[in-house]
């Protein structure tokens, strides 16, 4: 970047580089956002045995496939980080692009899945289960999309050998998005 960096960017008085510390703070707030939503879902699910009849209609195979996609994209994200640590920006960029591919696959599968469900009449207003389903998975999908955009920007920089430390930062965020899905998958798809 052309402008001079603020001092805080290069400081690491906590022993953690400022950028990475900021990502941890961001994730701490994300834990409360997703945790609150999933916690509320869990309470209602346990209090409403009839929701199992709605959960019947989610497609475990689509959910499992998307889990596979996200796990794989986490793998490529960590390989990008490994390459960035070696100072190999081009390889890091390549792995970031693969990760973006995972994000796009995930979102495409999700839109097909939602299309099928909405056409079948399972909309966000159908009942409490579907409200949570679309809210939780939708909020998660927004995080996937946001992550993919940021990853694109970082990949361009990394390809030119700039700001390689950011490869790790977007990776940490991306793994968090993966972790959220790891919990959403059993909550929405396996518990029938």
């Amino acid at each position, binding site marked *: 970047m052309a402008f001079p960096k603020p001092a805080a960017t290069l400081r690491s008085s906590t*022993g953690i580089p400022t950028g990475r510390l900021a990502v*941890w703070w961001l994730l701490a*707030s994300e*834990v409360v956002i997703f*945790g609150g939503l999933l916690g509320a879902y869990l309470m209602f699910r346990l209090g409403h045995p009839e929701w199992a009849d*709605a959960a019947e209609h989610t497609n475990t195979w689509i959910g499992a496939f998307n889990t596979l996609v996200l796990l794989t994209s986490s793998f490529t994200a960590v390989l990008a980080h490994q390459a960035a640590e070696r100072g190999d920006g081009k390889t890091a960029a390549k792995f970031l692009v693969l990760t973006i591919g995972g994000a796009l696959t995930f979102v495409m599968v999700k839109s097909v899945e939602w299309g099928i469900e909405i056409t079948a009449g399972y909309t966000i207003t159908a009942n409490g289960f579907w409200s949570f389903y679309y809210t939780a998975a939708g909020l998660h999908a927004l995080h996937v999309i946001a992550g993919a955009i940021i990853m694109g920007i970082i990949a361009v920089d990394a390809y030119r050998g700039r700001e390689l430390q950011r490869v*790790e930062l977007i*990776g*940490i965020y991306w793994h968090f998005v993966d972790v959220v899905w790891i919990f959403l998958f059993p909550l929405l798809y*396996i518990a029938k």
Partner: protein
Amino acid sequence: MAENHEQNGDGHDGGHHTNYKKIYFTLLGLLVVSVAGPFLEILVITLITAFGIAVVKANLVIQNFMHLKAEKRLAKWILATSLLLMALMFAGISADVMNHEGRNWVNLAAMAAVERGIVDPHAEGEVEEVEFVAVARTVEADFNLICATCHGTGGLGDGAAGVALDTPPADFTDPVFWETRDMDRILNVITNGAAAVGGSSLMVGWSASFSAERIQEFADYVLAFRPEE
């Protein structure tokens, strides 16, 4: 470049290299198990393969991909604080959400939802509307839920909260009590509270909570405690 190495060599990665490929294939194996679990159709196994494995998978990702295990303690404390807040939220409100009935309250809407079940979106027009009244409670159930707290289920005035009151509730089975009571007075007390007839202000009026019909039923219920002459 040198800056990156400096930042990352900061105790980060613990100096050794994590075998990412091994972690990745372990994650895939765990995914297969979590999908296969429900096919055994044993609830306990499904719960373990679904949620137990989710915790294991998440932990593998957090420790090895996010490198939290090699991170400074500060980051762990930040995340732990968030998790603690979550646990507090759950502990604080889950009992009220998961139960539909408590000692002094009922959640009629939730009860009706359970009763109604999940409405099939394809059954349009044929859907039988279940109103809240469909799960209307008997007068006995309401008496035992609300009134009996002080008056006791047998009307003896020996409810758990009642015995602690400075002016304990009357014994509805005592003939002396009925010498000065009739239906009008009982109705008045349930509707407006005992203070309306010069009694204890601890017996509040219930006209805001119950219909006139239900109050009449309460009065009948109370009169039924009256011993035969």
